[in-house]
């Protein structure tokens, strides 16, 4: 108990030391790197996952393929992928590719399931009142699938934020830097400090998505007993 408290105190000292908040090794810079890697990966993954998920869900075709691909992608150990690709091309790109591969499956699967799960009567009505194929997707399927789509995006975002620490392994910084350095030097103050920062970032992501949900999901979907 005392030991733990000690660690927390030490980490707090580390976190609040003014030297940590300046320079290329400082927290703001590392945080910015981390957010940048995570954001870019998530954006790419969202484009891919949403496009494929919406398409498969809307047409009712390729669903099996999409889910299978997603599961295969899930099975690839991210760390291994990074190492493997970095050997081929020493740049940040392999790291981002690995993060995208990690983030696509939850978005894809949830989008697909969300669209496929739209009430068939509502879908029939949407077509029946004269919406075009795109109209049905845009005015009916997408808004009704939003709760699940957001869930997928949030899951991916948190995974990406946690996993972006691997960018530090080939030397591209981010919050992972503290953890890796700390582990290498046996400096647990650094490890715990870095971890706390990552966790805090994940919490912020969680908050952002809670806000987003309020903002973009219709109250008509939240109030009912529908799956969300």
């Amino acid at each position: 108990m005392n030991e733990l408290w000690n660690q927390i105190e030490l980490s707090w000292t580390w976190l609040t030391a003014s030297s940590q908040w300046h320079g290329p090794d400082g927290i703001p810079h590392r945080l910015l790197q981390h957010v940048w890697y995570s954001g870019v990966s998530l954006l790419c993954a969202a484009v891919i996952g949403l496009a494929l998920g919406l398409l498969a869900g809307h047409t009712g075709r390729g669903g099996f393929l999409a889910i299978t691909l997603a599961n295969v992608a899930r099975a690839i150990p991210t760390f291994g992928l990074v190492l493997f690709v970095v050997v081929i091309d020493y740049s940040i790109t392999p790291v981002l590719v690995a993060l995208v591969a990690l983030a696509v499956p939850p978005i894809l699967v949830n989008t697909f399931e969300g669209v496929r799960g739209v009430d068939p009567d509502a879908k029939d009505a949407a077509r029946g009142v004269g919406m075009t194929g795109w109209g049905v997707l845009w005015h009916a399927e997408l808004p009704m699938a939003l709760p699940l789509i957001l869930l997928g995006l949030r899951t991916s975002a948190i995974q990406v934020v946690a996993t972006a620490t691997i960018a530090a392994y080939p030397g591209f910084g981010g919050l992972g830097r503290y953890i890796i350095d700390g582990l290498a030097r046996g400096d647990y103050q650094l490890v715990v400090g870095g971890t706390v920062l990552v966790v805090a970032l994940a919490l912020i992501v969680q908050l952002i998505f809670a806000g987003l949900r309020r903002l973009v999901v219709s109250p008509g979907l939240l109030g009912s007993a529908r799956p969300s």
Partner: protein
Amino acid sequence: MITFEGVTKRYPGGAVALDDVSLDCPTGEITVFVGTSGGGKTTALRAVNRMVEPTSGRVLIDGRDVREQRPAELRRGIGYVIQHAGLFPHRTIEDNIATVPYLLRWNKKKARARALELMERVGLDHSMAKRYPFQLSGGQQQRVGVARALAADPPIMLMDEPFSAVDPVVRAELQDEFLRLQDELHKTIVFVTHDIDEAIKLGDTIAVFRTGGKVAQVDTPENLLAHPADDFVAGFIGQNRGIRTLSFAGTGELRLSDDAVRPVTADAADLTGLDWILVVDEDRRPLGWTRPAQIGGSLSEAPLAPVGPTFRVGSDSVRVALDAAVLSPSGLAVGVDDAGAVVGTAAGSDLLAVPTHGNGAGGTGHGAGSDG
């Protein structure tokens, strides 16, 4: 007019949903498709707005093949109501109703004004405009479904079992309002149901579908009941065919008796010889039934049995009157006018003596009127 010309639909699996169906749905009238489950009613209905493409044959609207128009465009000009309403859960009631106006690019203000107007039309309070579908009862949702279909004032309405998911009381209410609406709007309506009573109540024409996608008979409700084309139709109409026929016999020609009707102020002295007395107030509104034996002093103090259901002379059918007679403590049906004042009473036997289709039996007592 909607015309089916030799329409056949074979689904990929091989199921024949429609087999060479030819029939007309006259303009401004309600055509009801009724029949066994799987008979092809829904398929036929959906062939009109191209939700189903026939394998062969044509569907024409006012002589024009529906395939001449792009599906989305065609459908915006045809109201579409389905069984569970199929409302959009993420849209408010007014936005649900304004769906087609939005698609037609009306401006938002005009579309919403139209939505409010329609809410009134279908009997929904304006306070529901900003609610979401999950906050409405099934019956209310169904009204919204009807309003949504009416929003762009399409000349044609397709309705697939719109009232089947609600309880009988609400259903009767929705049916009555639907008929009232149709009286004002005169749409060309195709209405699918598997409830023969609903078909008889609503239809100007009834098409009976049988398994295999064949149309067994197309006729007016009266003719369908009086002259079913074959055993299938007779069987489908059911054992109550005779009673149902009475739905088409009017009560306007009944001669009602005033013998048993007494104002509450009347003297109790001259009641001898009567089994039951209908006590009415000064406006002739019915107060209740009583028996002379139960009366001590004046009629106003007599114990009264409830009047029970009454029928409106002229507008209600003999079937309704007969129902009232059966449920009345005295066995006499009470006929009232539009103001609710008693016109007179009739016994069950008098009611059955009313001629239906000119073959009624001669009545006993104050029975049958002449054929109009």
